[in-house]
């Protein structure tokens, strides 16, 4: 079933202007988020996942960061061209966001009630405080927070990490946004709570039909939660496709490496697999494929030219010369260069 594209990111480029020069943290990325889907964005830290989400929200720390190119189309309107005043009407209402650290993402000096109703009262100027509180309580029940009336008067430090993340989710969804961006929502939580929060996000996605952009470095989370996944490396998209396809048949050496790095309990290994080397500093690789230095299959061409995203399946794209070279050998897959 083909669903309408809610958010289209086209050629997005976000640059940080530092003393060491302009560093493109996000370099010409394209992807889209469809209505009601859960899209995973995966990559190591520093690959530009968070900057991508902050760019969409218009919250890139500025200075030094700035969206320098590209379009962010929300139902056809380009958010990249919006002023901060116009963006304020989008944030929290159309696109909401939850963050990695529920411990520090809630303001310690305001009650849960105050913080939950804040977004409601910003976007619904005519609502009374009482009405906003009723809506907040309704949301708290929806995200599974017990004794919601009392919680309204409590402070974040009185809550556990899992409860705080539930508050964050309630807070993000309180104005019924079309898109929820979740930036590593479970990273700071312990494993049982992680599972609960992911389950909750899946439920809410089904129930409210909110499209979710789930940013994570954890492939397990992606496998469990998402329908499609975008793999990012050093500010670029290296692979994109449906989750089952990517897990079954990863094309890009980086994705392969990532999947291999996930410990598998079925096989006893002395040493876990890891991709050698480190993520390059953004902007440090000017020529060739950015993954070449760490790639087991890198050859001469990879160091000279930057591969583009090749269409390796109907819904599958990969940025690697290997798949462009493989085109003759793979008969069931039409390989077309996307650009």
């Amino acid at each position, binding site marked *: 079933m083909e669903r309408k594209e809610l958010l289209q990111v086209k050629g997005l480029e976000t640059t940080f202007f530092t003393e060491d020069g302009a560093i493109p943290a996000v370099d010409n990325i394209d992807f889209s988020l469809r209505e009601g889907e859960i899209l995973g964005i995966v990559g190591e830290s520093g690959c530009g996942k968070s900057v991508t989400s902050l760019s969409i929200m218009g*919250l890139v720390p500025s200075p030094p960061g700035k969206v320098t190119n590209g379009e962010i189309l929300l139902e056809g309107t380009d958010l990249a061209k919006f002023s901060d005043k116009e963006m304020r009407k989008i944030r929290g209402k159309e696109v909401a966001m939850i963050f990695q650290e529920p411990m520090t993402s809630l303001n310690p000096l305001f009650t849960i009630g105050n913080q939950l109703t804040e977004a409601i009262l910003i976007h619904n100027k005519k609502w009374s405080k009482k009405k906003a509180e009723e809506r907040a309580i309704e949301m708290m029940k929806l995200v599974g927070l017990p004794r919601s009336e009392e919680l309204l008067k409590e402070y974040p430090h009185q809550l556990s990490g899992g409860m705080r993340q539930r508050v964050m989710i309630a807070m993000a969804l309180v104005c019924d946004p079309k898109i929820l961006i979740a930036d590593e929502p479970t990273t700071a939580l312990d494993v049982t709570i992680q599972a609960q929060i992911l389950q909750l996000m899946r439920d809410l996605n089904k129930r409210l039909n909110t499209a979710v952009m789930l940013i994570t470095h954890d492939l397990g989370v992606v496998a469990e939660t998402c329908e499609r996944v975008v793999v990012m490396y050093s500010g670029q998209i290296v692979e994109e496709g449906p989750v089952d396809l990517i897990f079954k048949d990863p094309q890009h050496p980086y994705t392969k490496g990532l999947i291999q790095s996930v410990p598998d309990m079925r096989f006893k290994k002395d040493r876990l697999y890891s991709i050698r080397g480190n993520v390059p500093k953004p902007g440090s690789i000017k020529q060739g494929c950015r993954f070449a230095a760490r790639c087991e299959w890198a050859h001469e061409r990879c160091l000279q030219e930057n591969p583009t995203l090749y269409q390796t399946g109907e819904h599958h794209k990969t940025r690697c010369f290997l798949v462009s070279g493989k085109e003759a050998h793979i008969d069931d897959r039409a390989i077309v260069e996307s650009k």
Partner: protein
Amino acid sequence: MLRYIGRRLLQLIPVLLGMTFIVFLIIRAIPGDPAQVILGQQATKEAVAALRASLGLDNPWYIQYFHYLGDLITGDLGESMRTKTPVADELWPYLAATLELSLCAMILAVIIGVNAGIISAWFQNSWFDYAAMIIALIGVSMPIFWLGLMGQWIFGIQLDFLPTSGREDPRNPVNPITSLYLIDTLIQGRFDQFIVVLQHLILPALALATIPMAIIARMTRSSMLEVMRSDYVRTARSKGQKMFFVVYKHALKNAIIPVLTVIGLQTGLLLGGAILTETIFSWPGIGRYIYDAIGFRDYPVIQSGILIVAFIFIMINLVVDILYSIIDPRIKYN
């Protein structure tokens, strides 16, 4: 909370007791004899001895100290050796003058200092930030007497629109009720006098406010810069909140606690240490009162004056500590 306040008030007793003891000894270590000062250089030895005996100064120091403590416990601050009036009666108008001046100065310092700090942090590295911080740096390094004299010279003499000394127009004195002239004139409906009193306040209050204002601005800025980078500020923005409310609601409340500490300390310092400003502007405040008493070796006045100033200082700190727990629900005493 009440138990905490009670405990803090109990802690006051040993602190003040220790303080009276130290002050008592130090002022007696100053060379010079009250009886000699009162009677003058030409007085006979017999007359001086007689006055010493009548003032109780011929007793050993520890006897004098216990007499003083005994009086203090019954609420008697003693009698001025010079004017023979009870210190308790004499003290209040001076204290009121200082309270009025330093509170006005602190209100100025807090309003301007805190806002300058906030705006500097909000627009970090802007021209406002640079200008405010350079002015603040000049402010902290400015000797207060020089600033006072310059203020008098420019606004009092060259431009001639502000009075340079005193609290009131001596030809049209305020009828004191509370001795806080701003309040007295308002109670009595004397708006003409209110304006005059206010005019007298401007220069000394500005001079006195400069250093605390600069310290508060710098403190607010650095505290705000730290808070502005925090996750909850980003959360507030992600809700679509206006930057003004993000800054003045979410960030400021978190940034204000270290600033509050500085405000408390500075208020305490102003109340006790405004002697320079009070001297330059002939302000009849407690600093001048104690300073003059030292000149006359007027032991009871010095002792009681310092005791009151210390008491106020400690009380301000208590209030600041209580404010912490009101602002931050995580701070719990007991």
